[in-house]
């Protein structure tokens, strides 16, 4: 009896997969491959038009992106845009977004927090402050509860 109670081999089995009523995610329709806006955004940044680059990056990030590589590419582009802003211009950029844009911006900000580079956290914190003023705590809650991550 002692031997069977000590055996923990059963713990390696995921019994939830055998439950006939288990929750399976609805199959999402795969979005058509979005044209990568990376080069366009970089061109705008080089010209010094940070605001337009920002809007392009926000617009071209479809929520249904499936491949991890494409997501990382979009994140990298977005981070480049966010770090190229001057502190005084951030507020104006945030005010030019609509509600969905603010939610999307908040998602990118938190994604940027996850992988901090040299100066990124400082500028991201400034973006966070301005985005919070517009979006409120609700936008942060929507980052936490979002099922389709950025």
């Amino acid at each position, binding site marked *: 009896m002692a031997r069977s109670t000590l055996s923990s081999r059963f713990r390696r089995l995921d019994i939830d997969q055998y439950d006939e009523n288990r*929750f399976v995610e609805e199959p999402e329709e795969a979005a058509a491959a979005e044209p990568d806006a990376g080069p366009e955004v970089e061109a705008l940044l080089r010209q010094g038009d940070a605001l337009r680059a920002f809007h392009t990056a926000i617009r071209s990030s479809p929520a249904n992106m499936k491949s991890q590589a494409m997501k990382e590419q979009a994140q990298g582009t977005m981070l480049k845009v966010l770090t190229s802003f001057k502190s005084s211009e951030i507020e104006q950029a945030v005010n030019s977004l609509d*509600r969905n844009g603010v939610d999307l911006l908040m998602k990118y900000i938190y994604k940027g927090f996850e992988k901090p580079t040299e100066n990124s956290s400082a500028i991201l914190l400034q973006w966070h402050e301005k985005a919070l003023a517009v979006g409120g705590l609700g*936008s942060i*809650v*929507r980052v936490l*509860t979002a099922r389709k991550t950025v």
Partner: protein
Amino acid sequence: MAYHSFLLEPISCHAWNKDRTQIALCPNNHEVHIYRKDGAKWSKVHELKEHNGQVTGIDWAPESNRLVTCGTDRNAYVWTLKGNAWKPTLVILRINRAARCVKWSPRENKFAVGSGSRLISICYFEQENDWWVCKHIKKPIRSTVLSLDWHPNNVLLAAGSCDFKCRIFSAYIKEVEERPSPTPWGSKMPFGELMFESSSSCGWVHSICFSASGTRVAWVSHDSTLCLADASKRMAVTSLCTETLPLLAVTFITENSLVAAGHDCCPMLFTYEESQGVLTFGGKLDVPKQSSQRGLTARERFQNLDKKASSDTANATLDTLHKNSISQISVLAGGKANCSQFCTTGMDGGMSIWDVKSLESALKDLKIK
């Protein structure tokens, strides 16, 4: 606004009797306590001890004066007042997880229980066997049912659940009622028929409410959104992303206005514009007391700077009436069509009664349509 602190623990759920002189609430344990209003005080008159697990839902039928309670012990009891004591009758729900919410139907001949077993139990009284019997609505619910509300026609039932969807089912029981007439939600209503299902939002649906006429249904979910489906606009769903923490309870106070409350500890007004099909935020309904502004001494300012890196003490205390999240809202007077008073209970153990007229006069920009 009348605020009464019943307990130091959260009030799990509450229900009022017909003339609003008595309130039944669960003090976060296995019991139900009934308090009666004695002038300005509340005195406990009954203690209902039958459940073996926390009581998660209470509903008081106004006409037949019966209580139904459900709990985490997977049972529901129907209580009838015999003399001066409440006598329980067990209802076998045939669920294998906790019951989460319970609601009497408008005609009080049946009640619905939402549970963690991913199903809704519709219970009705069978005269021949002198026993409460239940039928299950299972498909296509994929997770715990958190909230329920009945349509005024006694047949349609709205359910909000943890699989991020709001659904409207038909709970037509042929043994206790006649065939319902067609509604804007559909005409064929056999038992268990899915009349409406919302598309996935991203949060658990905490609370759901039909409007007084039944043509609209509104729900709040955990991703800080409030959504409304209008049957007269071919069940179009409009949603509002709020700037607040998630809301936990919602109710209609007129056909076009909703009051919702949640983790921000104060009720808020929302308005539905029918012509444009748009929901807007109407304002917070809590009138904070004007606390005397103490000037900060230089020492206190330095201490704040040291501890919190800011000398701003604006968010130090909660100046709302409730000091913790509000978990339930109930309409006291006027019905959902023209509510004049509503009541909120929360996790601070307090119960507060709000008067709509005095809110309208106190908060200048408030417009209740």
